[in-house]
């Protein structure tokens, strides 16, 4: 140490010059706000070009009428008419199902639960997110343990998430296809699930049955998503906190309740937030298992009209879907806001 005292920092500092160094220095000298925006720039540019610009363009499409004949992709400018038609039900003819439910003044207030894309989507979202969170939590708790062979168990639990939706659909479709799968029987020879009254003998043509099965299929695949995120959250907890808690006398449950849970809550919220968002956009598994006619989700409406191709309507439904999602996830946003934003 004694001999190279002068070769220390001063030198190495002067060694660093040139454009790279001055760029680094410039960046370092930025205020926190400037620095923040600088770092966000790449992401914002990407999102701007690939997301914001297309959305703006799509939004403008939603202000035009559909056009099915002739070269033009869109008809005349109609302002918010598409939106109005959508909400009043005047556009339902073009959709695989009604958008909003029909309300009555008597219980159960909604007459066509399964005939309304909004209701179907909400039902799917509530149940799939609920069960995925619970199961994902359970899985993460298991994966968080140290036991022999846990790497294999971990792969096993995560791997459904890696299955393409087409195949996920095929797996469940075949399981519930009469005469192929063993999970559904005939009226004369019902399978267990039929006997339990959970599903009918042609479940994939029935909205309620299909919705149930689609939720099951989705939970199967997507719990892994939750598990992975929650597990990561658990793994990031400083283990010495558990030591403290143990010595303080915390049972496993109390450790979980007072340490694990609050500390992974942010991860859980993020996981649930994004699960909710993608559940609200569910499409692929419906298309591959039961079809959009049978289980009309909001995204089904978007895709079906897009393929029709009713571009104005499709753009409108897409924006309305986004709006509904925004409302639904505001639950989480409020939670986040209380923590952070």
């Amino acid at each position: 140490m004694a001999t190279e005292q002068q070769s220390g920092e001063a030198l190495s500092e002067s060694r660093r010059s040139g454009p790279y160094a001055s760029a680094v220095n410039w960046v370092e000298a930025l205020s926190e706000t400037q620095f923040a925006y600088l770092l966000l720039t790449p992401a914002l540019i990407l999102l701007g070009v690939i997301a914001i610009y297309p959305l703006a363009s799509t939004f403008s499409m939603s202000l035009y009428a559909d056009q099915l004949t002739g070269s033009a992709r869109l008809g005349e400018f109609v302002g918010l008419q598409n939106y109005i038609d959508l909400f009043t039900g005047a556009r339902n003819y073009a959709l695989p199902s009604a958008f909003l439910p029909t309300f009555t003044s008597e219980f159960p207030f909604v007459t066509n639960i399964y005939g309304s894309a909004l209701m179907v989507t909400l039902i799917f979202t509530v149940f799939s997110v609920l069960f995925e969170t619970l199961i994902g939590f359970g899985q993460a708790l298991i994966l968080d343990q140290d036991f022999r062979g846990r790497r294999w168990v971990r792969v096993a639990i995560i791997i459904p998430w890696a299955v393409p939706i087409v195949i996920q659909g095929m797996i469940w479709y075949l399981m519930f296809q009469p005469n192929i799968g063993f999970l559904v029987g005939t009226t004369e020879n019902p399978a267990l699930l039929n006997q339990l009254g959970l599903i009918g003998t042609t479940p994939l043509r029935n909205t309620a049955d299909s919705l149930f099965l689609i939720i099951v299929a989705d939970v199967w695949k997507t719990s892994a998503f939750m598990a992975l995120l929650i597990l990561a959250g658990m793994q990031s907890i400083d283990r010495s906190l558990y030591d403290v808690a143990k010595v303080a006398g915390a049972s496993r449950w109390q450790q979980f309740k007072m340490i694990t849970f609050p500390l992974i809550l942010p991860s859980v919220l993020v996981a649930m937030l994004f699960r909710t968002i993608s559940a609200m956009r569910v499409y692929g598994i419906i298309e591959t298992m039961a079809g959009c006619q049978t289980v009309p989700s909001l995204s089904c409406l978007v895709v079906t009209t897009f393929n029709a191709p009713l571009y104005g309507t499709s753009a409108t439904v897409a924006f309305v879907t986004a709006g509904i999602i925004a409302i639904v996830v505001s639950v989480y946003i409020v939670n986040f806001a209380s923590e952070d934003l």
Partner: protein
Amino acid sequence: ISTGGGDGDNGDNGSNGGGDSDTSTPINTEETTEDITVKIAGDTRMADNSDAIVQSMRDAGLPDNISIDIIAGSQVTDNRQAQYQQWLGGGREEPTLLMMDSGWTIPFIARNQLQNLSESLPSEMISTIEDEYFEASVSTAKGSNGDLYGVPLFPDFPTMQYRKDLLRNAGYTDDDFDTWATESMSWEEFSKVTKEALDANDVQYGYTFQADVYEGLSCCDFNEFMTSYGGAFFGGRDNLFGPVGERPITVDEQSVLDSIRMVRTLIHGEDDEYALDGITGGIAPEAVLQWTEEPSRKPFTGGDAIMHRNWPYSITINGADDVFGEDLGVMPIPYGVPADEAKYEGTGGPVAALGGWHMTMNPNAPQQQKQAGAQVLEVMMKPQFQLDNFGIQGWIPPRPELLDSEEAKNVDVIGRYLSALKVAGNNAIPRPVTVVWPQQSGKVAQEVNNAYAQEKTPEQAMSDLKSQLEAIEQSLA
């Protein structure tokens, strides 16, 4: 930044995504001399057989300077449609030729996204097609102006397959089978025969077909049932392709209701509240309500069914030696009412829903490409090419006359059943494809499936359907 389409900031908003295609300029049909590669959007099967196909083109006279590049598009027809919609809507120059389902060629025509062949190809070619091809096929490649926008490549007709061995147990003989091959039976008789066979054999199902909520129900199975009873979507064949909004909607007519009641009887038995008299019930499983082609075929191929309605692809499977071989019988689809008793021209009798594919041309392709593409189309119209491809990949020749040829009869398995196919072809009924058909099709499938499933009365379902179709029709008016 401005885009070619979608912004609508000028009067001509959303032109074809920038491609100022000219769909009707005549194409020079002289042989190109320079080397050129024509890209064809085909399907996997075509790509798999690409060597043989190109060889047959050469045999049919394709010059050596034109090479062929077949893009193996998805065989899932919806996927292809969506893809083409983007490609053509986006004004892409490639590919030059596109293989299009006869079920959705018309909307592309209506959106000016295909080359008008009547305008741009020599009139001999056009008239050959008009005169010699299966009429129903040609009708699905025409615009509302009567011009031709696609060259039928091969048609597809469903038939009724049956198990001769099982029917023999019920007392039917080869004589009957021979008759049935060309002379369709009525649904009444069909159901009776099936029931007899069901009783005479230890099989699970009598008759399997497709009634899931999907395009196949609206375009085909239901269309066949309905038409065979003399019903129609829009008042007969004439209105199949329009004019949208101005044609009557006739799905609530008695003949249509009868056909639904017939199917309900087949599935739910004669006890069904809406059972149709004369029909022997309980020969089709409830499962048909969620079956598409493959699930419905599985039990038949597996030996669990007596009768099975399906496309020719399954004849090849079921007629294979290690499946049923010669024991597979094929006949046209049964009829509800004879053609002469039917209310609408061209309905009733042994109808078969029309499938099949056309070859169309991308109007955005460069002239050079179009010129070469025209030559490829010409080659594809050669009878030799069509016969070759019947053998190579089972494309049924689009000319009825070729079905009588020896060469066709020699094709493995399916060659045995050409007579039934020909009947089907001559009685083919296209789906009523217009620009609004994609919307209508979904509604039809939903309502019909509901009615078949006893969730709605036939009347209710059809009147609901009528009003929905009405709304869709009006939306365009």
